[in-house]
């Protein structure tokens, strides 16, 4: 594999995509939302168990590419036990990381999520990495409608056969 592909598909990402953590339905979830990426057909549902402001349990299910599956898996690990505000701040920081923005110096530590830094070299894959996060946000906001990755930017696929 060429070295830049290895930047995108880091071992940790490949591991999470093959063996996603917290990959299960949550029958007694307080909140859930479905995310959809029309570009690649990815669909994933994020489930939330809440204790007041705290995300006491987070899980997901669905089918997606390696980047979106690994992102969902690592997201569930990262936000579990955090407050909504902390989860929001983490997403913001994560978004800055994968779009190549410098990010606010006072932001939270990304920890393991740093492995997604390679995504910034693959702009068309940013939506894959952010899909679970948008879906989490929708679940937190109690939005009933399906979230589309197209909220990320200009329409990715409208025609062309």
């Amino acid at each position, binding site marked *: 594999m*060429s070295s830049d592909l290895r930047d995108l598909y880091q071992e940790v990402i*490949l591991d999470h995509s093959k063996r996603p953590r917290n990959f299960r339905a949550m029958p007694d979830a307080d909140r859930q939302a479905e995310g959809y990426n029309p570009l*690649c*057909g990815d669909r994933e549902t994020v489930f939330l168990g809440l204790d007041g402001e705290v995300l006491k349990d987070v899980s997901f299910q669905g089918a997606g590419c390696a980047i979106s599956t690994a992102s969902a898996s690592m997201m569930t690990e990262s936000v579990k036990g955090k407050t909504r505000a902390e989860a929001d701040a983490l997403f913001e920081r994560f978004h800055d990381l994968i779009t190549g923005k410098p990010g606010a110096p006072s932001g939270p530590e990304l920890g393991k999520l740093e492995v997604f830094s390679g995504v910034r070299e693959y702009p068309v*894959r940013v939506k894959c990495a952010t899909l679970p996060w948008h879906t989490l946000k929708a679940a937190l906001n109690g939005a009933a409608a399906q979230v589309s990755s197209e909220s990320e930017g200009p329409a990715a*696929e409208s025609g062309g056969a």
Partner: protein
Amino acid sequence: MSTAIRDTTAAYDVAAIRADFPILATRVYGKPLVYLDNAASAQKPRQVIDAERDVYERCYANIHRGVHWLSVHATDAYDAAREKTRRFVNARDTREIVFVRGTTEAVNLVAQTYGRKHVGPGDEVLITGLEHHSNIVPWQMLCEQTGARLVVAPIDDAGDVDLDALERLLTPRTRFVSVAHLSNALGTVLPVRAIVELAHARGVPVFVDGAQAAPRMPVDVQALDCDFYAFSSHKIYGPTGVGVLYGKAELLEAMPPYQGGGDMIRSVTFEKTTYNALPFKFEAGTPNIAGGIAFGAALDYVSAIGLDRVAAHEHGLLAHATTTLSAIGGLRIVGTAREKAGVLSFVLEGVHPHDIGTVLDREGIAIRTGHHCAQPVMDRYGLPATARASFGLYNTRAEVDALAAAIHKVIGMFR
């Protein structure tokens, strides 16, 4: 304007053809470009690029209105493109050749003119399970507007249309049939002639979406006896923004106009407007003049090679790709219809098509991944997406081999 003249009895000289396409010399991430996304859009030969530039440099003006020299020459060149198109699909008359923006606009035009006039509450419009979104959504919109019902003839596991089921679905309520000639998602060639016969036996007209077929096989609208046939310039090595709607003159005559404006009128007063003759009745506004003329150059280009020879070349590539890719463990070809052309869809066990696409891209190989604007086809197979290689007249066996080698790299990485 230059035109490729080749001896059609000579061997298929793919190297000479490739030399006509400047973009094929591009290197992607340091690797030679392998362009296998022709079903999405085809690249343009120098002859087409030159033709479009030539219009702007030598004979550009608005058409059908000026008395001046430039306008006359631009009009002549644009009309010549219409005649080339007539010859290309073997229509009887240039009155039957309407220039539109693309296949999508052609479907919408027919749905909103013929459809609005002849389809009513409780009526049915019949399509197949293989259609591109642009041959689904305009009919859904028509059904919403009129209270008609969209009926879908199913496909089997191989990706062939179930012709018996299609015949059963032709009911006394069927007012219109619209089918693809060649599936963009699976590569299935549909038995269009048989479908036209079945529909005509019941007095139902047939629209054929030829977006994928026109660049890949000879098309004869009289032999098919279809009522409408549409295709896009950009998939047949011409510019974007130009397309063709062929319609039988008697049907076009009876249809109301699509859009109102200049060029589609004969006379206008505030009380009454009389519409122009065919095909201008359906061509409101200044068209894509340079694009239309360059489209004519694209038809010259493919005609000089010969569509039968292009078809044979692409058939060889598809056969080689089918054999080579089938031998790869964990790879499954989606769509194994009896007759296929130009398009190979596949999935790889344990690897999402999007990831295949990213790895192939870094090898310089451009394929399409996703639902190919045919989500119902994906749903039929229970797949969110496939990877799709689609061939053009300039592709080579070596490029197919490069694709296979790159797929092995994908497997090495994700397994």
